[in-house]
């Protein structure tokens, strides 16, 4: 465990914990957000029969860095009627809310930011900071458009947290733990031990679970898609409807923070879906390290699998974005309250029944 290693090195529990929680942030997530932006542009371009960025570096991989450099140089415009403390605080809150969830996600067998027993609960709670940040951004911009966008976004995120929680409760009923590390460890072995195929072990129960797990996965995926404001649920930042929604008034580095936090959020959400349903960092076929006899290789392999699954779900998110048109606000709400919530509650009841019997 990296935490133990650092503790032995430094000796202070606090410092070891601090470095342990910051490591994913700087070493992985920030560079990942830059990569994700480039990847989205390339994927969207190839889906649309065009090329995307090609001139900055090989096939444009330096494009995001160029964009960040440009945003750093921009003037930080604050409207004179805007509420300055809130205006400045909003991007910080959104950024923090998106990044703090990474502390509870296991990146590999050897590394987890903070081994929290209430992992999933912590994640859902911290995501609520994002809502506060968005509302602050919309209100303090002193702009009708931003206010409308922020209200809609807040309503959307809060409503879609409910199906998420219900699916999480379903999982808890089967596995009995909220700790993501334990959850992932439960899914060792091969891919048929993953939750989506009914969970570990081999019993009649497992096969009964499969259709409900699939439904739960779809509901969880859609709800988390809505939480990160991606199309088809991207009303808050719809460019052609409200000229940018809650981040209309932001420029320069603050805008970059909103932007980066969106991609970090996407990865966080994909990682959670992967960890809960698809085995987190577990490999589907067993470990090369085991077959070769090199024990030290296993954590790296696990990290690789974790990243691969996260990237796959991000790819699906981007795929959906570039295929589907946008839902209107009331249709979004109808989807949540009339479709997702009843189905997830029914799912929960049936899974509960199966567990009891």
């Amino acid at each position: 465990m990296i935490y133990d290693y650092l503790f032995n090195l430094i000796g202070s529990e606090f410092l070891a914990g601090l470095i342990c929680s910051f490591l994913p942030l700087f070493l992985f997530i920030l560079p990942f957000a830059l990569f994700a932006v480039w990847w989205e542009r390339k994927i969207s371009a190839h889906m649309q029969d065009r090329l995307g960025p090609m001139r900055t570096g090989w096939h444009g991989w330096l494009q995001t860095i160029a964009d960040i450099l440009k945003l750093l140089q921009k003037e930080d415009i604050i409207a004179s009627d805007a509420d300055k403390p809130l205006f400045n605080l909003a991007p910080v809150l959104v950024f923090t809310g998106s990044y703090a969830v990474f502390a509870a996600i296991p990146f590999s067998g050897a590394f987890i930011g903070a081994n929290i027993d209430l992992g999933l609960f912590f994640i859902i709670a911290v995501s609520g900071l994002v809502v506060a940040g968005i509302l602050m951004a919309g209100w303090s911009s002193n702009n009708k458009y931003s206010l409308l966008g922020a209200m809609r976004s807040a309503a959307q995120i809060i409503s879609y947290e409910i199906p998420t929680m219900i699916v999480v409760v379903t999982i808890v009923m089967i596995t009995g733990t909220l700790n993501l590390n334990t959850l992932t460890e439960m899914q060792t072995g091969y891919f048929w031990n993953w939750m989506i195929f009914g969970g570990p072990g081999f019993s009649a129960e497992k096969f009964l679970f499969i259709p409900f797990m699939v439904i739960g996965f779809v509901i969880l995926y859609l709800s988390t898609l809505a939480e990160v404001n991606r199309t088809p649920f991207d009303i808050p930042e719809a460019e052609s409807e409200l000229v940018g929604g809650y981040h209309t008034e932001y420029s320069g580095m603050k805008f970059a923070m909103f932007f980066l936090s969106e991609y970090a959020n996407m990865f966080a959400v994909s990682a959670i879906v992967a960890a809960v349903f698809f085995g987190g960092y577990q490999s589907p076929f067993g470990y090369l390290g085991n077959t070769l006899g090199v024990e030290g290789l296993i954590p790296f392999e696990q990290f690789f699998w974790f990243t691969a699954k996260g990237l796959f779900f991000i790819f699906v998110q981007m795929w959906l974005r570039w295929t589907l048109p946008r839902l209107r606000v009331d249709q979004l709400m109808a989807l949540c309250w009339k479709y997702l919530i009843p189905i997830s509650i029914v799912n929960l009841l049936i899974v509960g029944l199966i567990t009891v019997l």
Partner: protein
Amino acid sequence: MQYFRNIFSSLSTVFIGMKVTFKHLFEPAVTIQYPDVRLTLPERERNRLYVNMDDCIGCDQCARACPVNCITIETVKSLPEEDLGKTSNGKKKVLWVTEFDIDFAKCCYCQLCVFPCPTECIYMTDVFEFSEFNRKDLNYSFITLKPEEVAQKKENFAKMEAEKTAKKLEAAKLAAEKKASEQQQTPKEN
């Protein structure tokens, strides 16, 4: 029942759409990377005009055909003894063209000036990358005479005109004198 039909149709149409986009992920892009790779333009392409001054006879037809009045032509008659040569299709040139400006900021690239030209000296090329920083630089001048030559031609013309008017006046004076003397004689005869 409508409820489940809705769910089914949403999911199925979403998957059909996703299949289309996924297929396109593997098709080659239709973009060409412009400054490095350029398209060959068709032969009838209408971009910047070019005037071949050797063939221009200064007839002003193109300036009159232009709907936005972007061509300004000024000509000066040449002296009778000067030989300006012939155009490529045999017409003899008699006018010095002292100003032939086309303002490409105004030109609408409609090609109406190309058709009336009797010697086909004005035509559209395929040059389209001619942006300038200063708008005045888009006012192209096509004449081949130098400014001092232009001044000289105008002077020559002015002199010739002056001589002509002088001769006319003299001839008119002589004729008037002759007439006056004739009139004097005839009443005397009568």
